[in-house]
């Protein structure tokens, strides 16, 4: 099976995107999707050129540019509250049940 690809973007690509990406990887593993999803990180500046190679973008940054794939706000994973609806949106978008 082809892995689903998630791109996590933040302003610098070194701080919050990495934290959110690690959190998502752990959640995917816990839910048994560890082998089905690949999570990458980048800066918001790189996001536009990379987007088409991914199934979904999760970002912690304010984004107003249109993207070829769905963009989901991932700040909830940093603050540890309100994650459940965001996670459900991510799983639904990736078609994982």
């Amino acid at each position, binding site marked *: 099976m082809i892995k689903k690809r998630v791109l996590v973007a933040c302003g610098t690509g070194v*701080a919050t995107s990495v934290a959110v990406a690690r959190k998502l990887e752990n959640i995917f593993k816990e839910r048994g999707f560890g082998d089905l999803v690949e999570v990458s990180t980048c800066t918001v500046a790189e996001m536009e050129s990379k987007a088409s190679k991914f199934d979904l973008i999760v970002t*912690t940054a*304010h984004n107003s540019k249109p993207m070829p794939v769905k963009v989901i706000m991932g700040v909830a994973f*940093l*603050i540890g509250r309100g994650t459940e609806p965001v996670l459900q949106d991510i799983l639904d978008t990736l078609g994982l049940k």
Partner: protein
Amino acid sequence: MTSLFNPKLMVLDLEANTVTEVLTRLSDRLIAEGYVKESFTQAILERETEFSTGLPGFGRGVAIPHADPEHVNASVIAVGILRNPVQFKMMGNHDETIDVEVVFMLALKESHSHMSVLQSLMDVIQNESLLKQIKEAATQDTLLQLMSANIA
């Protein structure tokens, strides 16, 4: 690994009225201690304008300003406890503001070796009693110990 904290970068009772003042004060200390290049201040101010870093920590607002690794000489985290809350825009949602009381300014050279640092920092933000202890730390040493004990 060398320590990510320095008592001189534990700034208690930081008096500032604007985001720019908060960031400049902390950045000036980082420059003075040699952790970052002169260009760090401008970079972190621009970053904050474009990608705001206010987060609703448990019980009190937190901000985690940071900039590109190219402006950093050695990784370190400066902590600023604000005398009065300063309004930062919320991360990911510039229409909302957060009354920030605690600032963790991240000067990180690269991400992957600091993964556990970021993870534990996020845990701190979610820990109401620990955030209270950090906010109310009476001395730089107390604050340093709290950070060292909880950020690994």
